[in-house]
């Protein structure tokens, strides 16, 4: 029981970090970046290559992975999404799906579909024993990392000038522009931060589940979006809460109901949440302008 709870929180922490990326991009660019999950996968491969082929030390691998993903995020935004700034959400979403498939298939060509054994990069502190349950090093690091990231992001959006600009853009793009905020730059930075976080999520995810494939990111990506919706899209604590709840739900469903049906249960939860409270647990109600 405690075991499942802990592994649920650990998995949920990874979802939370990914969900933060979704939530920020959704809040500011008002788009569902479907390719976010695949940026995680690229982050995983970047760290894997730096470590396995180049033999770099772990911190450098993680930094390298974050750098690659940040650049990738900015490039994706500039090439694929920026031309569609005023297009319908249907057009943007289809493009994002295209980007997602593009990344997966490029990865397939480069690294093939054979799973790569990912070296654990998150085991540099000792495990903790709680009675007959052991909390692994990776689990502890994952949870700590997600908490630090959440606090950091909350401070960033609340206190810094850039963070305030982001909030302004998310409220009203036009007004923000009139106040002298560079909307395009703000959106780019949001993508950069979200993608950098995706790299961390990638490393943590692959450290806990060490098989790396081109499709590694897609399922966690979709589930993390579910988590973001569950917590209330646009809300940083909401993403965290949604992620952890979803992780626990998934682990408990696997343990007590059916491994095969656990995904179905997670998605059913999404549908129920959207039915009962479409704005999510911590989301704000949005009134449509007429």
């Amino acid at each position, binding site marked *: 029981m405690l075991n499942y709870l802990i592994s649920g929180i650990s998995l949920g922490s990874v979802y939370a970090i990914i969900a933060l990326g979704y939530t920020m991009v*959704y809040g500011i660019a008002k*788009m*569902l970046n479907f390719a976010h999950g695949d940026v995680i996968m690229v982050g995983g491969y970047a760290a894997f290559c730096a470590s396995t082929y180049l033999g770099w030390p772990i911190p450098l691998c993680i930094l390298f992975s974050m750098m690659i993903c940040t650049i990738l995020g900015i490039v994706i935004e500039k090439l*694929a999404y920026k*031309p*569609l700034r*005023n*297009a*319908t*959400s*249907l*057009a*943007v*979403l*289809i*493009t994002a*799906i*295209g*980007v*997602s*498939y*593009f990344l*997966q*298939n*490029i990865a*397939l*060509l480069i690294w093939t579909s054979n799973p790569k054994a990912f070296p654990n990069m998150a085991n540099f502190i000792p495990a903790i024993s709680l009675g007959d349950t052991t909390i692994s090093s990776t689990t502890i690091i994952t949870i700590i990392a997600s908490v630090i990231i959440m606090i950091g992001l909350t401070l960033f959006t609340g206190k810094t000038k850039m963070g305030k600009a982001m909030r302004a853009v998310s409220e009203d793009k036009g007004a923000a522009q009139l106040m002298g905020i560079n909307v395009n730059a703000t959106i780019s930075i949001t993508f950069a931060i979200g993608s950098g976080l995706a790299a961390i999520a990638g490393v943590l995810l692959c450290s806990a589940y060490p098989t790396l494939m081109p499709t590694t990111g*897609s399922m966690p990506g*979709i589930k993390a*979006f*579910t988590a973001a*919706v569950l917590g209330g899209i646009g809300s940083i604590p909401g993403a965290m809460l949604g992620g952890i709840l979803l992780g626990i739900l998934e682990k408990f469903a696997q343990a007590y109901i*059916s491994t*095969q*049906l656990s*995904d*179905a249960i997670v*998605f*059913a939860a*999404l*549908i129920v949440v*959207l*039915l009962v409270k*479409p704005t999510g647990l911590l989301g704000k109600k949005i009134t*449509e302008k*007429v």
Partner: protein
Amino acid sequence: MGKKVNFLGKTNKNSLKGLINFGIIIVFYAFITILKGAGGLTNALEGQLIPICAYIIMALSLNLVVGISGELSLGHAGFMSVGAFTGVIVAGAMKYNGVNANAPRLIVAIVVGAILAAIAGILIGIPVLRLRGDYLAIVTLAFGEIIKNVLNCLYVGIDNAGLHFSVTDEAHMDMAAGGTTLVRGPMGAVGVAKASSFIAGIILILIVLFVIQNLVNSRTGRAIMAIRDNRIAAEASGINVTKYKMIAFVTSAGIAGAAGALYALNYSTIVPKKFDFNTSILVLVFVVLGGIGNMTGSIIAAAVLTVLPELFRQFQDYRMLVYAIVLILVMIATNNEKIKALWKRFSAIFSKKGGNVNE
């Protein structure tokens, strides 16, 4: 300044557009029949004929949702699989009960498959259609995954007492001796009593075209398109938004179910994994490449993109990569404001249409 509009003249124009689609399908059938007669049809290509029909129907079905209703469904393969497995079970049960002729089995399988998929469409539509845009898309995706997961656990068999179901394993179906297993969880439907044929596929396409085109050119179709163009204005004009979105969604789901039954009854084995997210995306590629809202485009794109990979097997690895690039480029080319303005200028040069609108 303009011309007086003549009622009959106008409807003739609309039906003419529809007739073109019927023409394309009939010409396609004639061409394939002649090619086959002349021995010009390779085995590989012949094996693709029924899947082509099924994918054309899928593309038409998805285009009804994406193009006419303006919503993105990412779970259309889910409806296809409901139709496929229903069709397999129905056709299998009929065969078990001594109906050996293909035509009645196929017809009943398609009809029941379509009905069950439409029911699934209603069940999904109730929660989903209250949502807007991206949320709707992601929930249809979730739904597709749920169906796949559930079918992966589904066991169905038939004996003299009738159909037996189980969600755990074969033994739990409690079948009497002499019964036949029709669906075997993740292994899917095995020993399917094949019943599909190319001509059946062609007829089904024609029926689907008839239904969709007549739906679109009616007060119902106009209401659906009005909601797509401006939901609030549609509401203010007295249109019941949920009802008409539901009509489009459920019709589309039913058609996808029919396509699924046609598709499944062409193979002796069919697994749930066949109808995953990738299949939904594949159909979306047909719709996007053929032109969102353009039924003729969907037909051509579905046919060409199903045949091409067969002809260029050596490029198999690049297939999905190319599709991904196609999705991105087509969306940017058709939605970027600068490029759109450029198109407008082009078409203004080449046609005088709309030039007489200025007062």
